[in-house]
């Protein structure tokens, strides 16, 4: 699916979230001069196409006590990386999971998984869980803890097609 100018307007209007109103899609439509049914139909089509991953709330995991996280990285045999990566991503304590190219000789790891827990010890326990899941297919792993946020900006998006 390719998105058109109207879809882009909906994206720009809702990228920051939905209004807390009984009929939020009608309200978004009101901002854009679209009727509610069209907003819902277009958002449903975008969800079907994967442009919208889901409509949901994102709990603040820090506020709920998951204050520790680490970027775990794994050197997984190429022929098993897709199947094993899918299993790692499905774990409920993994918030991001990607295959990326290695950068040899500096960097042997191809699977990246962000692990979350209540404290560092819990994150390390989750790391052991992932290591057990990967088994012999994993030749080495590491975990990188962040020590400082140096910059954080939201995703910028223009409403233009």
């Amino acid at each position, binding site marked *: 699916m390719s998105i058109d100018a109207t879809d882009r307007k909906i994206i720009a209007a809702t990228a920051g979230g939905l209004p807390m109103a*009984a009929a939020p899609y009608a309200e978004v439509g009101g901002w854009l001069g679209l009727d*509610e049914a069209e907003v819902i139909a277009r958002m449903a089509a975008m969800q079907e196409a994967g442009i919208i991953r889901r409509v949901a*709330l994102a*709990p603040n995991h820090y506020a709920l006590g998951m204050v520790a996280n680490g970027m775990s990285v794994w050197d997984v045999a190429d022929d098993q990386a897709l199947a094993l*990566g899918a299993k790692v991503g499905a774990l409920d304590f993994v918030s991001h999971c990607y295959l990326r190219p290695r950068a040899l000789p*500096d960097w042997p790891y191809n699977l990246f998984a962000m692990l979350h827990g209540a404290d560092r010890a819990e994150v390390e326990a989750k790391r052991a869980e992932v290591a057990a899941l990967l088994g012999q297919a994993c030749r080495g792993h590491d975990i990188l803890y*962040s020590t400082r*946020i140096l910059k954080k900006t939201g995703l910028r998006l223009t409403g233009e097609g």
Partner: protein
Amino acid sequence: MRRTRLPDGSLDTTDRAILNALQVGFPLTPRPFADAGEGLGVAEGDLIVRLTRLREIGAITRFGPFYDAEAMGGAFCLCAMDVPQARFEEVVTLVNALPEVAHNYERAHRLNMWFVLACEKPEGIGKAAARIERETGLKVLRFPKLHEFFIGFRVAA
């Protein structure tokens, strides 16, 4: 965004049920709060009031559609650098000055600077990385996403 745990007693059982249920999904229907509330035994108006408060106290970071950034157009790339400790602050300033640098983290590793480049077009990534290499004299390792896995992340509230 709040980065610390909420004080004890901030959430009641209903708040927790709402947080657990709505992180999975929220309906695309004319009266979604009424529909979502039905399964939770929470009236439409009460659900709106509670979600508004949960957002105000920082229990929720986002509420609404989650867009796939790449599906909307644009290019992204995770990058890493091995920055000598003595030059760290100078390099932070140079790297952060590029508008293409969306976020940047210091991490405890030999590769101690990790940032994401976000550009309108794929060719922007290479240009931004080359500019950082030119300005810092340091190598920028690029780790573009080859495959993104479906995520089962759930926070138990």
